[in-house]
């Protein structure tokens, strides 16, 4: 929204994954435990997700406060913010690497991963349904929030024209902080889903999802939430189609090729940039 991609968002996500892991430990969920079901599963998932969201949200807010806000106040060029993001990213990665080692940390199995049914040759597993449903609910909530609430309007107005937004009575600093908080909360929730699905945490775990999220956003058109959703789905389909044709080890190559191609031929994304088109 600020014409700024927070490349350290990967690490906010990573912290969400770690926070989920620690929350599970704190709840006494251990590797040997039988998988939970029903209410117990729902309750522990919810607690873990809230902990992860709070951890990631706070990280994002602190990041904005100590790193981005001072830069903005000084009217620093965008490149400075970008380099800062890379710096924060490395700092957080190494911090977690030193503290928790460079090896993969396993997650206890929280839920039974049972096949529900087959759909056109694809097996639909419980955890996949969980991830899909949660992700859709979060996207829907975000979309409604940004479209309907006063703060959501403030965020959109700030993204489109910060100076005019301030003339309308929008407190820019506050809106930016809340935007970071919102992004952090969502990254935290994604961290929990990632943890439950892949059952692994590592200091550099955010890197690939981060790049892919960026690819999805670019694909859909930066600054366009629905576009990002469509971009994400499209990227996932392309990846899986690519790995089916070329083999699984080409999956990530495929994602980056898409990124490069989109940036080269259609930098405004497939759905175009909905903002700033009429900017004088």
């Amino acid at each position, binding site marked *: 929204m600020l014409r700024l991609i927070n490349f350290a968002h990967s690490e906010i996500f990573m912290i969400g994954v770690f926070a989920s892991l620690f929350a599970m430990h704190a709840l006494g969920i251990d590797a040997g435990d039988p998988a939970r079901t029903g209410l117990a599963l729902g309750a522990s998932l919810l607690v873990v997700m809230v902990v992860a969201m709070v951890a990631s949200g706070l990280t994002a807010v602190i990041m904005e406060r100590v790193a981005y806000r001072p830069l903005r106040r000084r009217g620093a060029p965008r490149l400075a913010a970008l380099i800062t993001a890379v710096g924060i990213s490395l700092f957080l990665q190494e911090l977690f690497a030193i503290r928790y080692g460079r090896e993969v940390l396993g997650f206890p199995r929280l839920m039974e991963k049972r096949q529900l049914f087959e759909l056109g040759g694809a097996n639909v597993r419980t955890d996949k349904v969980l991830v899909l449903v949660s992700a859709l609910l979060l996207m829907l909530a975000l979309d409604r929030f940004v479209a309907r609430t*006063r703060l959501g*309007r*403030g965020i*959109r*107005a700030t993204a*489109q*024209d910060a*100076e*005019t*937004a*301030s*003339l*309308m*009575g*929008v*407190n*820019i600093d506050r809106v930016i902080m809340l935007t970071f908080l919102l992004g952090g909360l969502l990254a935290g929730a994604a961290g929990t889903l990632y943890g439950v699905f892949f059952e692994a945490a590592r200091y550099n775990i955010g890197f690939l999802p981060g790049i892919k999220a960026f690819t999805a956003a670019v694909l859909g058109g930066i600054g366009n939430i629905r576009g990002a959703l469509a971009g994400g789905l499209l990227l996932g389909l392309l990846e899986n189609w690519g790995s089916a044709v070329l083999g699984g080890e080409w999956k990530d190559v495929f994602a980056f090729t898409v990124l490069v191609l989109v940036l080269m031929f259609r930098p405004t994304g497939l759905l175009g940039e*909905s*903002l*700033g*088109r*009429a*900017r*004088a």
Partner: protein
Amino acid sequence: MLLELEDVKVHYGKVEALKSMSLHVDEGEIVTLVGSNGAGKTTTLKTISGLRPVTSGSVRFDGRAISGLAPHQIVRLGLCQSPEGRGVFPGMTVMENLEMGAYARAGRSRPDLGPDLERVFALFPLLAERRSQPGGTLSGGEQQMLAIGRALMARPRMVLLDEPSMGLAPMLVAQIFEILAEINRQGTTLLLVEQNAAQALRLAHRAYVLETGRVVRSAAAATLLDDESVKSAYLGGDATAGAEADGAPGPPV
């Protein structure tokens, strides 16, 4: 005195954009700032609305010093700016743009915007027709109407207008100026910056002539309109163009 600037200095880096700006606007007036490019007209407005920090001097609104406040705080006092280049949010509909105008008013509870929307739509019937159209798809004149209407949504006591006639056809300019006169009659004080000095002087009660960051003349608008030196410097000898816009109000009551 509703608005008062006293010996205000503003810098862009090391460049002194406003050297010693002193002016005032009384409640109910229309005051205009005329001057060539770079005279400091836009800077003056941006300084009043809090977008530019003041180096020294004081800005007072309704007796209260506002020079240290952030723009969003100043709006809440009832001093609203319709920015240069219109500043319509392109990705938002006309309705959403208008709702943004009331952003400063929306406290804890959702305010009822009905009467305000009615007022804006009465002034600009075109906006009512276009209410669900994105702001970016409006024509220049429609965007200007939207920008003015949006400023009114804040129920301001005073509106700062930066170049409302910019890039518009003469017919539209006349129409917009008539509406500005009407808004003033309804009780809103206006401070207007205009390239189109002839038009602005016909609308305004008083005017300040700005040169390189300071006021060089201050007089009743009608006086300046007839002044030979002002005519040659700012009116381009074309003071009769658009004379049909005689909706200019009398002196404030």
